[in-house]
C-alpha cells in the first residue's frame, strides 16, 4: 500500500515512534500524512482504537477523510477535525460535569458573536477598531491580555452569563480539565492509537499543552505524528508557534524522531532557489519533479500604479491562457480580503470569457460552527451525485448535533440523514434575498419535521447569532456583498477557474503561475503583526506555490487612512535578484 511514496515518505510513514516530520513546500506532506493514517488504520489490531487527525481547518479534515476513502481504507476508526472540534468532542462534552463553569450546559459563541462583543467593548473602553486585544489563555490558566484586562474580564463575564464558551475558552477549559483530572489524559491516551497534527507550525502554545498533557497519560501506547514546515508558519498573529524538535520533546517529555521531506515535486529549481531567499531554516530543497530543470519566469513590479494594476494582471492572465496554461493553474493573490475581493470582481468583468474561482465574502462564513450555518449549506449546495456523500455526512453531523441539544429527529427511522435530505430537497422558496430565502426554508423545514425550535435555547440563541451576524455583514459597506440568493449559492460552488484568494487561503495549494499583489509594508506584514520574520514566511508561502512562474507586485498609489503612502515590503525589496 505504500506504492507511490518516495523513500523519505515511506520512512516517515512506517516509523513507529513519535514523529516530527518537517516538510518543505511541494514535498507531498499531505500525501505522507494520509498514507500514515491509512497505514495505521490497516494495522489496527484493536478495533476500538481511534486515530486522531488534528487539522488546521474543517476543509482540511474533509480532504483527509476523502483521501482516506480514496485509498480504500476503512475510516470507521478515524476522527479528523480541528483542534477545537477535538477538544469539544473528546474533552469538553464528555467531561463537562467536572467543571462548575460548564456543568449546567454551554453553547459555542461563534466567531461573529465574539467579534461583535469585543468591538462593542472596545468602543466602551475607548479603544479603536484596530487596537488588538487577545482573548487567548496561557497554558498556566492566565489570560494572555494584560493591558486591556478589564475589557477581557467583562467579555468573559458576558459569555458566562449567557452560558457561552468562545473558541479560546474551548481550549482553556479543555486544558483545565485534563490537568485537573489526570485520569482523563490516561483514558484518552488509551483510546487513541495515534494523534496526527497537520501544520504543526501554526499550533498555539495552549494547543501544544493540551496534546502533550494527553501524551503524559499514565498508560497507553498512543503516538504522535506531527507534520509541518516552520518556514510556513504564517499564523503568528493568531498565536501559532513553530516549536523546534527540542522544544517539542521538552513539552511532551518524550523523544521524537525527526524526519524530513526535502524533495520538492512542485516547482522548478529556479523558483525554489528564489524563495529560499525567504527561508528562515537551512533545510536544503531539491526539485525532484519532472520540471526540475525547466527555467522559471520571475518578475517583480514596483512601479505599476494601483489604478493600472487590474490591466497589468489581466495582461499576464491573458498571456498565460494564450500560452495554453489551464485556468485553474493560475492564481492571483493578495495579503488581505479587502484587496482580493474587489480584484476578483474587476477581473471577472474585464475577462468575461474566463472562469474564476474567486473567493467572495459570504455573509455566512463567519458562522461556520453555527447549527443554522450547517442547515444553510444543505439548502445552498444543490443535490447532485457529486455532492451526495458530502451532503449526507453534513446531514448526519447535523442530526447528531441536534441530538446533543435535545432535539431528536426521525426517532424510529434507520436512515435519518437520508430522510433529512429528502425533506430539505423538497423545500423551496420564492424569496430572492438570500437571508429571507434561508429563513423561509428553515421555517418550512421545522414545520415538516414537527419541531418547535423556539422552545430550544440552543437553537434560538444560534438563530439570533446567525441572522444578526449575516445581516450585519451584509450592511457593512466595506464588504459590498451581494444579497441575492444566487450569490449565496455561489459561495458554496467550487467552480474551477483562475483562483483569486488571500495568501492564507491558498495554504497547501499549487499553481503554474502565481501573481501576487499588495506586497506592501503594512499589508505584508500587517501593521499589528509582531511575530518575527512574519513577512519572510508569508513571502515564502506565496512564492512556493508556483511551479514555473512568479509575478510579484508592490503597486504604487496606495495610502493609509492618514494619507501616507505605502512602500514595498522591505524584505522583498531588499532582495537582489535578476528578475525577468
Amino acid at each position, binding site marked *: 500500500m505504500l506504492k507511490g511514496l518516495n523513500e523519505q515518505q515511506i520512512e516517515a510513514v512506517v516509523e513507529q515512534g513519535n514523529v516530527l516530520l518537517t516538510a518543505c513546500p511541494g514535498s507531498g506532506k499531505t500525501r505522507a500524512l494520509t498514507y500514515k493514517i491509512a497505514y495505521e488504520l490497516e494495522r489496527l*489490531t*484493536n*478495533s*476500538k*482504537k481511534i486515530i486522531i487527525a488534528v487539522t488546521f481547518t474543517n476543509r482540511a479534515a474533509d480532504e483527509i477523510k476523502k483521501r482516506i476513502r480514496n485509498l480504500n481504507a476503512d475510516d470507521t476508526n478515524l476522527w479528523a477535525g480541528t483542534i477545537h472540534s477535538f477538544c469539544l*468532542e473528546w474533552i469538553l*462534552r*464528555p*467531561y*463537562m*460535569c*467536572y467543571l462548575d463553569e*460548564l*456543568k*449546567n*450546559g454551554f453553547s459555542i459563541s461563534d466567531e461573529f458573536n465574539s467579534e461583535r462583543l469585543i468591538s462593542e467593548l472596545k468602543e466602551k473602553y475607548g479603544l479603536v477598531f484596530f487596537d488588538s486585544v487577545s482573548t487567548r489563555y496561557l497554558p498556566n490558566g492566565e489570560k494572555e491580555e494584560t493591558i486591556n484586562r478589564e475589557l477581557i474580564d467583562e467579555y468573559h463575564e458576558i459569555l458566562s452569563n449567557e452560558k457561552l464558551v468562545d473558541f479560546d475558552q474551548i481550549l482553556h477549559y479543555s486544558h483545565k480539565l485534563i490537568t485537573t*483530572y489526570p*485520569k*482523563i489524559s*490516561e*483514558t*484518552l491516551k*488509551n*483510546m487513541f492509537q495515534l494523534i496526527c497534527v497537520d501544520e504543526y507550525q501554526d499550533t498555539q502554545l495552549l494547543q501544544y499543552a493540551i496534546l502533550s498533557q494527553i501524551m503524559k497519560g*499514565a*498508560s*497507553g501506547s498512543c503516538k504522535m505524528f506531527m507534520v509541518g514546515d516552520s518556514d510556513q508558519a504564517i499564523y503568528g498573529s493568531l498565536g501559532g508557534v513553530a516549536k523546534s524538535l527540542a522544544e517539542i520533546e521538552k513539552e511532551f517529555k518524550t523523544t521524537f524522531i525527526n524526519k524530513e521531506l526535502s524533495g520538492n515535486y512542485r516547482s522548478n529549481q529556479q523558483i525554489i532557489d528564489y524563495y529560499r531567499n525567504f527561508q528562515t531554516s537551512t533545510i536544503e530543497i531539491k526539485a525532484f519533479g519532472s520540471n526540475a530543470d525547466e527555467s522559471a519566469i520571475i518578475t517583480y513590479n514596483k512601479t505599476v500604479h494601483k489604478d493600472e494594476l487590474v490591466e497589468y494582471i489581466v495582461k499576464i492572465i491573458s498571456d498565460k491562457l494564450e500560452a495554453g496554461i489551464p485556468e485553474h493553474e493560475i492564481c492571483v493573490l493578495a495579503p488581505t480580503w479587502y484587496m482580493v475581493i474587489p480584484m476578483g470582481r474587476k477581473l471577472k468583468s474585464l475577462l468575461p470569457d474566463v472562469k474564476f474561482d474567486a473567493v467572495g465574502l459570504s455573509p455566512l462564513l463567519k458562522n461556520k460552527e453555527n447549527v443554522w450555518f450547517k442547515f444553510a449549506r444543505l439548502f445552498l449546495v444543490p443535490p447532485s451525485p457529486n455532492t451526495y456523500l458530502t451532503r449526507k455526512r453534513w446531514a448526519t453531523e447535523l442530526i*447528531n448535533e441536534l*441530538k*446533543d441539544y*435535545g432535539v*431528536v429527529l426521525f*426517532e*424510529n427511522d434507520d436512515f435519518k440523514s437520508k430522510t433529512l435530505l429528502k425533506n430539505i430537497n423538497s423545500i423551496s422558496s420564492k424569496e430572492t434575498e438570500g437571508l429571507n430565502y434561508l429563513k423561509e426554508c428553515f421555517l418550512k423545514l421545522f414545520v415538516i419535521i414537527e419541531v*418547535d425550535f423556539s*422552545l*430550544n*435555547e440552543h437553537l434560538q440563541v444560534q438563530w439570533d447569532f446567525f441572522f444578526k451576524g449575516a445581516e450585519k455583514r451584509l450592511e457593512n459597506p466595506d464588504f459590498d456583498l451581494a444579497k441575492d440568493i444566487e450569490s449565496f449559492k455561489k459561495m458554496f460552488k467550487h467552480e474551477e477557474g483562475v483562483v483569486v484568494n488571500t495568501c492564507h487561503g491558498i495554504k497547501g495549494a499549487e499553481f503554474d503561475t502565481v501573481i501576487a499583489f499588495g506586497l506592501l509594508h503594512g499589508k505584508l506584514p500587517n501593521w499589528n503583526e509582531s511575530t518575527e520574520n512574519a513577512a519572510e514566511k508569508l513571502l515564502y508561502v506565496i512564492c512556493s506555490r508556483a511551479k514555473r512562474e512568479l509575478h510579484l507586485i508592490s503597486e504604487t498609489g496606495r495610502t493609509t487612512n492618514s494619507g501616507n503612502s505605502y512602500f514595498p515590503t522591505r524584505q522583498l525589496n531588499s532582495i537582489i535578484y535578476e528578475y525577468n
Partner: protein
Amino acid sequence: MYISKLSIRNFRNFSNASLDFNKGVNTIIGENGSGKTNLFHAIRIMIDESMPRITKLFETDFNRSIGEWKGHWIIIQLEFQELDSSEEAQSIAMHKIGAADDFDSTKGTYSLYFRPRIDFRRSLFELSEDEDKTDDELEKILTGISLNDYETVFAGRGNIDFSIDDNYLKYVGDFESITFPDPDEEKTDVYGVKMYGISIPNEFACTFAKALRDVESDLRSYRDNPLLNLLRDNEKNISVAKKAEIEGQVEVLNNNISGLDEVKGVSTGITQTIKEAVGETYAPNVNIKSELPSDMEKLLQSLKLWVGDPDEEGHEGRLWELSLGGANLIYLSLKLLEFEKVKKENKIANFILIEEPEAHIHTHIQKTLFQKLDKQKTQVFISTHSTHISSVSAISSMNILGRGKQKAEIYNPSKNLDGGDIVKLERYLDTNRTNLLFAKGVILVEGDAEHILIPELVKKVLGVSLDELGISIINIGSTGFENVAQLFHEERVQRNCSILTDNDLSIVELPDSLIGDSDYEKSCRQSEISGKARKQKLDAYCKGNKYLRPFYAKHTFEVDFLLANNSFEIIATVNKAYKQVADKKRIKKLIEDKDVAISGKEVLRLAEKFGKGWFAIMVSENIDNITIIPKYILKAISFACPSFNTNTLFSIAKYRLKKLETRHFDGDDTDYKKLLSELISFDNQIEAIEFYKKQLPEDVLTKLIHLAYA
C-alpha cells in the same frame, strides 16, 4: 469491571428498586410474577446490543403504583465498579461512564432516562416558580403530555441514585408540592453527560439465555452460529490456510458432478425436447452444472457439532439427540468460549443472563457450571424461582424479589452483614434449605416438638397449611436465634419473623430463698434464671427491629400446650402408648391434676421418656379441630402471617363450622349446621366473616383475626 448496582425507578413492576451485585455469579430469586423477566429486560436495555437500537418505552412500562404516569420519568441506572482506564478496552467505559463524583475512583454510572421533552419540563418548572400555582394548572400541563412527548436519553457519569425518593423528588419533581427543577440548568454533575457517538451496548458482550428456547435452531442459524464466530478473526473474516486448495477441490468436485454421464444425459434430453418443441432457431442452450458453494464462508456453514454422551463411549450423535439440558450446556459453553477467544480483547466486559436454568440444566451441573469462570471479565446473572439453585449460590450475591402490591419488593439478604456472619449463614442455609428466604413470613423454633406440632395444629384447627398462609417454620436447632434472625431486617429480608421459645418459669412454686432447694427445685430454679436471662437478651435483640418479635411459652412448649386445655390430647396419646390399664389411669390422673407442678411435671416426664420429637409425633396424631392452640403460638402465627386474605379466612371459617358440626366440646349446643348454611349464603365474604366473628366471639379464628388486626 462489573455491574455493582442496578437502580430502577417506575419501570414495570418496580416502583423504586435497587439491587446490589457482585463479581461472578449473581442470583435473582423470586416467585413467578415477581418481576424477574422485567428485571432482566431492564438490564438488557442497557447492555445488550441485540436489543432494538432505539429504546422506546410505552405507557404500560410505567409502574402502576405511581398512578397517572404523565410527567413521571422511567429511570434505569447501572453502576459499575473496578473500572480501569489503563485496561485498553475499558478506557471507552471510563471515557463514557466513569464516576462523576470523583474521576479518580473506579466507579461509573450509566443511566437511561425516559422523560418528557424539555419544553414540558420547562412548563412544569415555570409553574413551580409561580406563587399562585394550583393543582389544576399542574393537571392541565400533565394531561397535555403524550407518550410522543417523551424522550429517551442515555447518560454517563450520573451521580444520583434515583431509587431514593428524596433524589427523585428533587431532581425529577415533586408532584404533590408542585416543585420541579429547572431543565435549562443541565446539572450534568447530577444527571450525567448525555451519550452520543459510541454506543455502550456495542462495547459489551451480552448473552441472554431465555427460559424457553430452541438451542438447536440457535446453533443452526447463521448469525448466531457460535461455531462460525469462533472461526472468525478480529476483522470478522474467516481465514483458512488451505483456502485455495479446498476451493480448488470443490471446483473439481463440481466439474466431476457436472461431467457425470447421467447428468449429461439429462441436459441433452432437455435440449433435445426444447429443440423439437420450438425449433433450432429459438431454442436456448441448456446445460446442467453442479454448484456446491466454493466460497469458504459458505462451505464452513456445513460444520456441525457432534456430541457424545459421557456414559456411552464411542457414540457420537447430532445435537438434537442430546437431552435439552445437554444441548443448553453446550450452548452456554460455546458462548463462553466465543467471548474468551473472540471478544475478550475488544469488548469491555462479558455478561451472561440466564433465565431459570432449572428449566434446562440439572442442579448439580448448575453448581459447577460457572465455578471456573474468569470473574474479572465475565459476570453472570441467573434468575430462578427454585429453592434448589438458591442453596448453591451465596447469599452475598443474591437478590430476592417479592411480589408486593403493584410493585416489587427487593431484598438483599446479606446487606451490611459482616463477612464472617455471611459465611456462617451461607453454611447454615446450604444444609438447611433456603425456603426461609422465600417465605412471606417465618416462625423460628428451636426444637423438634414445635417444628412437628405447630404445622399439625394449624392444619387440623384451621384447615389450612402453614404454606398456604405463606409461613415457613424453621427449626434452628441449637444454632441460636440471633444468627438466623439477623436476616430479617429493614436492610435485608423485609419479612416478619416470629421467634418462638420458652420462658422456662418454674412449674413448682419456688421459695424466696434458694437455701434448702431440693435437687428438682434447684434445677427448676436454674432453668428459671437462665430463662429470664435469655428472654432479656432476646427482647433486647428484637427491640427496634419491626420485622422480629419473640413469643414465649410461659414454662415450656409441652407444659403450655397442656395448660391450654389440651389434656384430652395428651391422655389419648398415653392411652395409645401404654398397654397397662393401671399405667393409663395413673398418668391420666396426674395429667388432669389442677396443679401445674404435678401435671406439668408429668407431661415433661412423658416427653423425656419418649423423646421430645417422638412424643410430639405421637401427640400430633391425636390433634383435631377442637384442640386449643396456645395463645403465644397463635400470636406468633398472626405476626408471621403477612396478611390474611379474605378468601383464606372464609375457607377457614367454612372448615371450622363443618368440623364443629360433628366434633365440638361436650355441652356445646351451638347449631353449627345452621351457622354454616348462613355463612355460605352471604354474597360478600367480608360480611360472612363479620357474621362469624359475631356468632363465635370465643372461636380460635375470631381470636386470630383480632390478633392480626390488633
